[in-house]
């Protein structure tokens, strides 16, 4: 585990992230152009979808059923546990608790990709259908979070609109669309596009993480505003959800690598799909809380230390069975 942790910290992806953080803290003007950042996120999401769809061709329904059920269960459970902890222990308002819960219920696609890269580096194979689970986990968490945050009938009337927007939002279309396109692509078609979508993938991810480091560093000054409880929450909650998901993943028949990726998904907090949805549906929720916890605490924690821990937990549970 220690060597896996060291290897992970020295991977180009994590180092690029640290470079972004350092550059920003040193006052550098380094930034990826916004359009490139958007283009990279489109590339990464579509590549995950395409590859997932292509590998789905070899998967059977029976193989996916149990992990899919566990994923949906996690999608409903994680926002609830986040909400209860924030409300009862943290003393946050209903709106703030629900807003943060919606972020933690949904997935960070970049954390998902980082977990897959980690497993590839650690030599753990990962089931090809994991991107399907990513698509499954993306929406329920936001839906539950928004539901908890909107108490009155009139507020709930707007919920359907918010959910529709998530479902037709960029990340869902690219993921689900990619799954379908990849699933229908023949072997010849795949070999024609795979140099672009597979070979370039890690490089694009490294560049993306550089920008993520810059964005994260910009949030660091907000850490003072959110208080110590949320800082602890940003580390404790991923550990709780990640450990739970790693164990459930193994019970559902996933490999050690698959359970690690599922754990990273459950442990992660969304900062692309969730923020605008929460901002519109729960106006009283303070976006500084959720974005700072998700971006400045949970994301760096998962990418550097969390994923190796989930990997160790998953393999520990696998040995016990």
């Amino acid at each position, binding site marked *: 585990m220690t060597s896996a942790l060291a290897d992970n910290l020295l991977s180009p992806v994590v180092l690029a992230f640290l470079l972004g953080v350092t550059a920003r803290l040193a006052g550098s003007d380094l930034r990826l152009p916004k359009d490139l950042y958007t283009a990279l996120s489109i590339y990464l999401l579509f590549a995950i979808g395409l590859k997932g769809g292509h590998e789905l061709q070899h998967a059977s329904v029976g193989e996916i059923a149990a992990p899919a059920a566990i994923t949906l269960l996690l999608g409903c459970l994680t926002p609830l546990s986040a909400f209860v902890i924030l409300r009862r222990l943290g003393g946050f308002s209903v709106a703030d608790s629900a807003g943060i819960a919606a972020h933690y219920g949904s997935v960070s696609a970049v954390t998902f990709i980082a977990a897959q890269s980690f497993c590839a580096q650690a030599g753990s194979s990962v089931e090809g259908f994991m991107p399907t689970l990513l698509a499954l986990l993306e929406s329920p968490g936001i839906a539950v979070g928004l539901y908890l945050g909107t108490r009155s009938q009139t507020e709930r009337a707007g919920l359907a609109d918010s959910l529709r927007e998530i479902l037709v939002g960029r990340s869902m279309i690219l993921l689900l669309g990619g799954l379908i396109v990849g699933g229908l692509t023949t072997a010849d078609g795949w070999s024609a596009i795979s140099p672009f979508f597979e070979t370039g993938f890690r490089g694009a991810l490294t560049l993306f993480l550089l920008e993520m480091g810059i964005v994260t560093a910009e949030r660091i000054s907000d850490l003072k505003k959110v208080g110590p409880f949320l800082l602890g929450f940003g580390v404790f909650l991923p550990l709780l959800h990640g450990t739970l998901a790693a164990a459930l993943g193994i019970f559902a028949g996933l490999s050690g690598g698959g359970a690690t990726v599922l754990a990273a998904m459950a442990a992660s907090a969304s900062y692309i799909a969730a923020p605008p949805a929460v*901002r519109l549906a729960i106006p009283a929720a303070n976006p500084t809380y959720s974005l700072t916890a998700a971006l400045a605490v949970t994301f760096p924690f998962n990418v550097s230390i969390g994923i190796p821990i989930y990997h160790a937990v998953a393999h520990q549970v696998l040995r016990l069975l």
Partner: protein
Amino acid sequence: MNPLVEVRLVTIVAESVLAASIVAALRELGVSGYTLTEARGQGSRGRRTGEIPGDNVRIEVLVSPATADKILATVSERWFADYAVVAWVTTASVVRGLKFP
């Protein structure tokens, strides 16, 4: 050139998640056209959430004085409490005054 007519220029600067809702509200008030630009800045609510693409938007519409009042009333009632929004009105002189309801 036709004589100039006085109308109102309403400018709304808001966080970008509101763009679609504001445009929809303007349409409901009978506004026939608008200009939308991406904007960046700092205000009493601090930096905008940069992960939400587009940061701020600046929406400008040319309307009659009566419509300008309605727009300000709607914007203040619906969004001032919870969102980073500012709106102001100036007088503008235009040719073809009838274009602006």
